[in-house]
């Protein structure tokens, strides 16, 4: 796992690409270590971070690395609150505070299992960097199955971050009109010698956890939670651990073995 440099660092935004309802924020990070797939960073705009709706944002926002290309970090954003809105408004040349890479990573399939990557909405981000890594480092492994679910066509535009995806939308405007977990159930019925890599809304992850537990399929889930710090200091981002107590999503996750969870809780965070 890559260690983060101590202290936040100032990066320059090199580009912002429009992917339907999403923005792909790109920032040059010449001194930053390459993130491991699944890791995240804490992001804050250097200027005008605060003074928005309800005098927010104040805290940085946790965001998974979507890609790492030649010293450039990519983050996938959706405007869901004052922090993500400000990040979406960044323009090339503006400055961004970054602390990271932080947290745990996705681990390669074992026992000859095939990889299934399943993502929902903006949660497809860490699966993109994981697919890049699988293609580069494990070219001998059979190509991963990629299942992506979105609310509508404007969000399904994010699917271009991944290669050969099967797509579902809630309104049927792109791909199949279905829940992405219905595709997963069919995949696992066909061949359950697989390992699941999933990221997305909590109800989707909970459905994935149940489907995999029923079939004894190992699953690595990338969780989301409202965070203040991202490096284990605040104890604010916890989720219940199976058998009692809590996991800190920032340091025990964001990628956790589904077996560590009794259930996937609703995200513990206000619109960020």
């Amino acid at each position: 796992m890559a260690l983060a440099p101590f202290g936040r660092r100032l990066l320059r935004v090199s580009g912002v690409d429009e992917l339907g309802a999403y923005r792909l924020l790109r920032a040059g990070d010449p001194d930053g270590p390459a993130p491991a797939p699944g890791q995240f960073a804490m992001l804050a705009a250097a200027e005008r971070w605060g003074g928005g709706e309800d005098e927010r944002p104040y805290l940085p926002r946790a965001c998974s690395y979507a890609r790492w290309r030649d010293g450039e970090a990519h983050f996938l954003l959706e405007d869901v609150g004052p922090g993500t809105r400000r990040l979406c408004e960044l323009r090339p040349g503006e400055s961004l505070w970054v602390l990271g890479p932080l947290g745990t990573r996705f681990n390669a399939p074992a026992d000859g299992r095939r990889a299934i990557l399943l993502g929902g909405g903006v949660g497809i981000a860490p699966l993109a960097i994981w697919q890049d890594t699988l293609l580069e480092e494990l070219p001998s492994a059979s190509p991963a199955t990629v299942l992506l679910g979105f609310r509508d066509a404007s969000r399904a535009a994010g699917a271009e971050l991944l290669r050969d995806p099967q797509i579902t939308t809630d309104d049927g405007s792109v791909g199949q009109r279905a829940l992405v977990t219905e595709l997963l159930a069919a995949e696992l019925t066909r061949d359950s010698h697989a390992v699941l890599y999933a990221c997305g809304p909590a109800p989707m992850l909970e459905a994935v956890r149940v489907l995999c537990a029923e079939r004894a399929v190992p699953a690595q889930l990338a969780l989301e939670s409202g965070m203040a710090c991202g490096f284990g200091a605040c104890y604010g981002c916890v989720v219940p651990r199976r058998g009692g107590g809590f996991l800190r999503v920032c340091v025990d996750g964001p990628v956790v073995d589904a077996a560590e969870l009794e259930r996937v809780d609703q995200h513990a965070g206000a619109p960020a």
Partner: protein
Amino acid sequence: MSVSFCGLELAHPVINASGTFDLLAARDAFGASALCAEFPFAAFVSKTITLQPRVGNPPPRLFEAPAGLINSIGLPNKGLEGYLTHELPGIAALLGECRSPLITNVMGSTAGEIALLLERCDEREEIAAFELNVSCPNVETGLDIGADPVALERVVRTVRTATRKPLIVKLTPNAADVAACARAAEFGGADAVSLINTLRAMALAPGPPDLAFAARSTARAAWLGGRTGGLSGPAIRTVALAQVAAVAASISIPIVGMGGVQRANHARDLLDAGATLIAVGTENFRDPAAGARIARALA
């Protein structure tokens, strides 16, 4: 800008607020050598240790407030024995490398409990001083020990004999007369006081959108799992300054000032108002190296 504080010689006046920096987690995230190369704190204050282990409050534990943060973490910790056995050796080794003395923060709901915590910790040479968290309800009255000057003086006097090491009393800002509480701590035998702790605060869970006022339910739930929490960050900076100034005018023991410090000029304000040390709290969450930046700018 070295500072003498309760017999400790410190390299600069910047320390951390209890519970805002997890040393072992920071070592794992950033590496020990990078952390020690510019360790932010001239002394390190542990999170609050209680007699029994605590898992902390149910989530949600955070709410982003206007220019601040409300937390209801609930003081999760491994308990006294877990701390002494499993955490203290690692913390002390790292602090030795970083040349920063350890101040252990403790909390108990009775004087007897606090005395036991102090006695057991006092035996450990890795610990240089104590901070006493008195923002804990008295088991008999339900009032925070630290909010009642009479109870506070009695508790501090009782536990004072449990250790010869410096004892800092961390005052609660949720009191009618904070200066009176500071005097009570001094009369009870405290070597220093620290303030301010977080201000009690609350947020409600989102209600149904766009309902007419009359149709709104009055039964909206609290957002935080612990119902109320503590407000910190820039939102409380001016409150902290007023309380530090009031306390400084009332006592003669040293003060650790904290509340909303983000930059050196905020630290300087607290020092000018009468603090000997300042603590960085919530700003550590936004930038773990904030304390180092502030200490450099103060030098």
